[in-house]
C-alpha cells in the first residue's frame, strides 16, 4: 500500500525464542515460578464532550498483592492530538502505545498530514489481532482530528468499538455506573472533567487494584491539557526521615585499581566522500 515503509510486516507466526529462556529461568528460581508480569489492575475512563475528549486514569500499578508503583502514568502519548489509556499488562500497554506513536509519527512526516484517530485504531487493531490475545492490552484511545472528537476502545483480541463514553480495567464496572448516570451528549468542559474524575474515584474506592491519584487528560482542537495529578490521594504517606545518604556515609576501607591492558589489533581509516 502507499507509505509501506511504516510497518515492516514481521515474519508470520509466533517467535518462541523466549520460552527456552523462561524454562532456564524457572530452574534458577528453585522450583518457584517466574516473576508474574506487572498488571496495572486499573480504572481508566474516557468521555467525549462538546469541544473534545477527556481521558482519566488512576495511578496504581500492582504486582500480585503489592503496589509496585504509586505514580504510574497510564495515559500514554500517541500524537499531539491523540492520547491512549491502557489497562491490562503494563509492559504490553506501554510497548504497544510506544510502537503506535512511532508509526504514526513516521506516517505524519511522510504524508504531510496530521494523524487521524481512525488510523491509530486501525494500526492497533491489526497489531493486536495478529497476536490473538497474547498481548494483554485493553486500550481506550481518544483524540481530536479534522473529522471531529473520537473515543475508541480496543480489546486484546483486536475488537474495536467506537463509543461516546467508556471505562476499562478491573474497576470498570464501578466507573461505568457513574458514567452511565452522569453522561449527556455535548457536556461542557468542567462537568466532563468532573464526570471522569468521579468515575475514576468510584473505581479507586471500590476496586483493590486501583488507587492513589487521578490523572486527567483533556484533548481539544486548541491543544492538550495533561493534568497529572488532577486529584491526589488523601492517603498520602509522609516519610518520617530522609532516605538520601550523602557521599562518605559508608567508609571506604580499601581500594584496588587494576588497569585493563588493551592492544590495538587493527586500525582502518575510511575517508568520507563529501565531493
Amino acid at each position, binding site marked *: 500500500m502507499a507509505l509501506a515503509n511504516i510497518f515492516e510486516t514481521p515474519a508470520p507466526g509466533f517467535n518462541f525464542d523466549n520460552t527456552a529462556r523462561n524454562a532456564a529461568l524457572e530452574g534458577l528460581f528453585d522450583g518457584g515460578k517466574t516473576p508474574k508480569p506487572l498488571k496495572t489492575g486499573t480504572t481508566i475512563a474516557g468521555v467525549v464532550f462538546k469541544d473534545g475528549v477527556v481521558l482519566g486514569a488512576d495511578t496504581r500499578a500492582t504486582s500480585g498483592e503489592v503496589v509496585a508503583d504509586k505514580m504510574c502514568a497510564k495515559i500514554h502519548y500517541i500524537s499531539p492530538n491523540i492520547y491512549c489509556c491502557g*489497562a*491490562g499488562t503494563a509492559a504490553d500497554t506501554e510497548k504497544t502505545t510506544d510502537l503506535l506513536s512511532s508509526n504514526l509519527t513516521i506516517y505524519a512526516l511522510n504524508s504531510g498530514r496530521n494523524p487521524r484517530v481512525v488510523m491509530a485504531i*486501525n494500526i492497533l*487493531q*491489526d497489531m*493486536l*489481532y495478529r497476536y*490473538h*490475545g497474547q498481548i494483554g492490552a*485493553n486500550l481506550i484511545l481518544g483524540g481530536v482530528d479534522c473529522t471531529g472528537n473520537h473515543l475508541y476502545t480496543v*480489546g*486484546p*483480541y*483486536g*475488537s*474495536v*468499538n467506537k*463509543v461516546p463514553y467508556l471505562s*476499562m*480495567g*478491573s474497576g*470498570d464496572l464501578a466507573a461505568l455506573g457513574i458514567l452511565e448516570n452522569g453522561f449527556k451528549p455535548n457536556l461542557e468542559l468542567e462537568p466532563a472533567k468532573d464526570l471522569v474524575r468521579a468515575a475514576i474515584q468510584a473505581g479507586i474506592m471500590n476496586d483493590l487494584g486501583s488507587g492513589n491519584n487521578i490523572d486527567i487528560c483533556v484533548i481539544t482542537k486548541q491543544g492538550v491539557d495533561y493534568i497529572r495529578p488532577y486529584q491526589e490521594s488523601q492517603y498520602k504517606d509522609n516519610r518520617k526521615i530522609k532516605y538520601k545518604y550523602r557521599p562518605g556515609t559508608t567508609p571506604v576501607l580499601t581500594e584496588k585499581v587494576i588497569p585493563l591492558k588493551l592492544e590495538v589489533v587493527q586500525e582502518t581509516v575510511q575517508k568520507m566522500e563529501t565531493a
Partner: protein
Amino acid sequence: MEKHCTDSRVKGVSTGTTILAAIFDGGVVIGSDSRASIGGEYVSSKTINKVIQVHDRIFCCIAGSLADAQAVIKTAKFHLSFHSVQMESPPQVIAAASVLKDLCYKNKDELQAGFLTAGWDKKNGPQVYVVSLGGMLISQQVTIGGSGSTFIYGYVDAKYKPNMSKEECLQFATNALALAMGRDNVSGGVAHLVVITEKGVEHVVVPGDKLPRFHDE
C-alpha cells in the same frame, strides 16, 4: 478484564447475536441486534454495529468473535474494493460472499466468525448468502443466524412469504428481531435494519423501547 471471561467458547468480545436477511420484491432487508458480550455475562457494548457496508450495495452481518469478524471484514472490504477497481464495475453480491467464504474456509482453525451477506447487483438483483463458521457458502431467500436465531426459526418459517412489499418485509424483520431479543440473553439493544434496492440504501434503527412487544407485560 479477566474477571469477565468465563468458559465461553469465544475468547474476548463475542457478538452473541441475532442476525437476519430476507429478500422482498425489488430488494433485500438485512438486520441485526446491537449487543456485544464477554463470557455470556457482561454486556460490553449496547450499541455495537453488526451490519457493515462492504460496498455500495452490499452489506454484511457478523456473528461470533467480534475481533475475528472485524478482521475478516476489513480484509474482505479491501479485496472487494480492489476487485471492483480491476473489473471497473461494482462487484456482484456473490463476489463479496465468496471473499468471505474463502477467508473463513482457509482459516477455519483459527477463526470463529460467521456472516450473512445481502445486496443488490445488476445481474441477479437482490440476493442473500450465508457463510457459516467452517466456510460453507449457500444462497437463500431468507436466512437467520447467531445465537438468537434458534428462537425464531418457527416464526420465520411461518411468516416469511416471497415477494412481500418493502413495508411488509421491514415489519417481518423487526418482529423477528424483537422476538429473538426477547428470548436470547446475549441479543439485545436496538434493531439495526438496512434496506438495499436498486435505487439505494436506507438505514432504519428501531430503539429498544420502540420494538414491538409480545406478551411483555
